[in-house]
């Protein structure tokens, strides 16, 4: 579960946004799961799986603080201590349903791998990706290759101006997969789509379910984001 992954590449792809590819041991990695990554800092940093090709996992991450700044300084050939894949991802058994993917900012990464896996199963998807501004956008072409892709920017510098909820209201789909900041998740959780799956973020300690740092209120009591999630049905969590 813990392994030393060799960095294949690590490059800037948008404002303060890096793409890192690391080579791991051969194993199954489900879309929507994450790795808990050791940096210069004490606690590990959770990063979603943005893609997997052969044994190479892609992370797309925003440089926020000391941990991600340390990652951004790593070079090809450096070795990264990663724990994972962890958690439970998006359900892929949507064979005869129409799926809409809704991502906001740094919540976009897990949706790329998810869309690829859905496409591999012949499932058609629409993606709605929200960013702050034009220079924050990443992976647009990669998403377009896999189907209809609607981009929104808060400041209107690219695509539709506004939030993802605008285009989402017009979309006709049975299932929604979403990842992004909490206000966005709250909005999409209230949308008209019948089956809604949300990937939740929370500050973590262990990342494996032992410390109760990452709990999220739930109708029946609580859930642990790291081991019960990070993906939940909207009804399973109280945002």
């Amino acid at each position, binding site marked *: 579960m813990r392994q030393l992954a060799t960095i294949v590449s690590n490059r800037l792809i948008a404002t303060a946004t890096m793409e890192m590819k690391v080579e791991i041991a051969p194993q199954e990695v489900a879309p929507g799961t994450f790795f808990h990554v*050791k940096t210069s800092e*004490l606690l590990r940093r959770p990063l979603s799986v943005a893609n997997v090709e052969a044994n190479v996992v892609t992370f797309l991450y925003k440089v926020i603080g000391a941990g991600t700044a340390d990652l951004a300084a790593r070079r090809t050939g450096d070795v990264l201590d990663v724990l994972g894949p962890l958690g439970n991802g998006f359900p892929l058994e949507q064979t005869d349903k129409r799926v809409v993917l809704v991502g906001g900012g740094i919540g976009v990464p897990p949706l790329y791998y998810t869309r690829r896996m859905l496409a591999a199963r012949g499932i058609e998807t629409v993606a709605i990706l929200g960013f702050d501004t034009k220079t924050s956008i990443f992976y647009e072409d990669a998403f377009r290759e896999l189907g209809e892709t609607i981009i929104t920017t808060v400041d209107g510098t690219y695509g539709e101006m506004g939030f993802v909820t605008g285009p989402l209201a017009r979309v006709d789909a049975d299932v929604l997969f979403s990842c992004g900041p909490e206000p966005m998740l709250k909005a999409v959780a209230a949308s008209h789509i019948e089956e809604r799956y949300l990937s939740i973020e929370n500050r973590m300690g262990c990342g*494996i379910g032992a410390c*109760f740092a990452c709990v999220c209120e739930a109708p029946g009591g609580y859930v642990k984001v790291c081991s019960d999630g990070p993906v939940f049905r909207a009804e399973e969590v109280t945002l």
Partner: protein
Amino acid sequence: MRLHVDLPGLQLKNPIMPASGCFGFGEEFAKLYDLSMLGGIMIKAATGESRFGNGTPRVAETAQGMLNAIGLQNPGVDAIIEDKLPFLSTFDTEIIANVAGSTPEEYIHVARQMSADPTIKALELNISCPNVKCGGMQFGTDPDMAAELTRLVKAASTKPVYVKLSPNVTSITAMAKAVEAAGADGITMINTLVGMRIDVTTGQPILANRIGGLSGPAVKPVAIRMVYEVAQAVDIPIIGMGGVRTVDDVLEFIYAGASAVAVGTANFENPYVCQEIIEALPGRLDELGINHILDIRGKAYEQTVSRA
């Protein structure tokens, strides 16, 4: 046998155990390595009823440390006994129950239930959790209250009782002597230091609970100093903790006077850390010319070396 440590109620095959609250009830770590290799396991705090704990964020990182304010989330003593202890009983290691509460009655109830279960070999009396409104800390910072609670729990328990000390006190030796006089079989120390972090973009504390308990390598020097002081002040054994992450940290605690060591926060950084320390111990003892690990216990104060 050079790692074997005998303590009241506990036959430790080695002096390494995960600290309470940092290892849950073992289930997650059991997927990573065989828990039977551990000297013991200090399980998560139990209260009388189930508790949800504090709001989130519950953790905040600091320089080589972390703050936590979990707030004693646990399913309650009965659910733990029913759902968690059977699994733990399948491992060949000593299980220590962490006993918490808001009132003396609740502590007594939990202690009675826990000590009655054959899987539990000793109790750890948590009088020092800084993250709950009632109970916890108050008992842990006043020697008389700590002594009284120790007496009550000792009377209710059929198993040895270790009292877990809070470092947030003027005199740690006064606390230690008080609980020793009240009948404690051992001391575990230290619990976390009370701390806070503020998010400068909001001006508000990061933790929903505002304050939290500081743990990790940052606190180790305070823990070592306190173990060193307490070991010279009492005759009951000490299980030391606070910032342990390497085999040399373990030796530092034992030189300071501890008989065994618990590992908390380091399990988050490296979930295999207890296994790795246990595997590294014999080789490190060889390098340092130490035969049995307890040969060095308290040597930091017993043997005085002349200095320039």
